[in-house]
């Protein structure tokens, strides 16, 4: 049986599959998704659709996101100790993760000023939703995160005893909407377009 060479650029078919050759493009392959370079040609690495503008492959399956250094992530506080707060990362940018990843916020990286006076117990409590920036991969399994920016910190807090919504009242305090009691937090200055970060 004759074997046809399929090493021709695919433009007419709606999908590309791993190994399909893509039209040449000047952009380096490193900052494009779904492609790789072999022998000077660009090839698709996933099953998806070719976007017209930059010849990247848009995946049909939502891809798994690895948080990278500098990414803004949303996480839920699991436990707080004197030296660090353990969190689970639930989304990276606007992409919600399928399963949470572990993260850690060290005491020195809670806020930018007066670092030595930080008390983690007065910054986070379990179940708080925190916006943080990824510093990198720690030596363990956890990502190291920071909230040392005014836009980063607790964005959603609830009173644990009755689940009531709490409202930020200053840069370091949340107030319960039911009882009026105030609690200390590292409050984030929320900007409207969180999801676009």
């Amino acid at each position, binding site marked *: *049986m004759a*074997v*046809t060479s*399929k*090493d021709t650029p695919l433009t007419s*078919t709606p*999908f590309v*599959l*791993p*190994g399909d050759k893509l039209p040449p493009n000047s952009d380096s392959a490193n900052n494009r998704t*779904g492609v*790789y370079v*072999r022998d000077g040609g660009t*090839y698709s*690495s*996933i*099953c*998806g659709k070719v976007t017209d503008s930059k010849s990247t492959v848009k*995946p*049909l*399956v*939502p*891809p*798994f996101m*690895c948080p990278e250094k500098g990414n803004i992530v949303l996480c839920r506080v699991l436990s707080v100790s004197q030296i660090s707060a353990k969190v689970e990362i639930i989304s990276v940018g606007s992409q919600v993760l*399928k*399963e949470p*990843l*572990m993260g850690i916020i060290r005491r020195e990286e809670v806020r930018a000023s007066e670092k030595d006076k930080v008390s983690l117990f007065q910054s986070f409590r379990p179940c708080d939703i925190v916006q943080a920036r990824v510093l990198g*991969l720690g030596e*363990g*399994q956890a990502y190291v995160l920071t909230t040392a920016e005014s836009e980063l910190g607790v964005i959603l807090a609830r009173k644990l005893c009755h689940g009531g919504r709490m409202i930020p009242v200053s840069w370091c305090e949340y107030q319960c909407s039911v009882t009026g009691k105030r609690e200390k937090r590292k409050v984030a200055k929320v900007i409207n377009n969180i999801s676009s970060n």
Partner: protein
Amino acid sequence: MADFEYLSPEGLRSDGRRPQELRVLSCNISHCLQADGSAYLQQGNTRVIATVYGPHDVSRRSEAQHDKAFINCQFSMATFSTSERKKRPTGDKSCLETSLALKKTFEAAILTDTYPHSKIDIFVQILQSDGSDKAVSINAITMALIDAGIPMKDYVCATSVTLINDTPIVDLNYFEERGPGPELIVGTLPKSGKIVFLQVNSRLHIDNMEKVLKEGMNGNQRVHTILDTLIKKHLEKSILT
């Protein structure tokens, strides 16, 4: 067994195929909704289920690699898959060896550096064994990986080849696999023609090697064409619904 006719005077095999003919290949992709990717592949009477989970966080610290993903591959054969009932589905030497071989194969094909510090689980189970188990497993895993959206260099296609009366015979069934000829299993990346898996069972003369290997690679090209159409059909169906 000695006078069993593997190739009739007319040049047909015991199941009526021509020497270079593949068995009928059919596939059910995404049958398992819990998994990130899954494929059920039937090649003649060999039936295989492959499921892929991940990439996800590593479960043990020792699995974490700072520059690439860890691939975990588990090959098993259902107790009812062979004519003689197996005692346990996994854990014997041949299963472990196959698991390792499949792991090495897909480490060469998956772009593991996309996902540092994470893990990809591949589970493959033979439901019915009728020859070419490893080759069919490789094809099934490829389908499951594409379904999971894991970046790969290319498809990995595999076929088994033997030599009977100086004629290479492609895609062996159980009888041919147990026959007197040597068995060569070859897995390639069909578009670049690179070999990522090669195994020879029993002795194959070096003069015949080239001939057998070439026939295996041709078989892989045909497997690739079939898998490609199957995937495209599946995609069109899933986009429409």
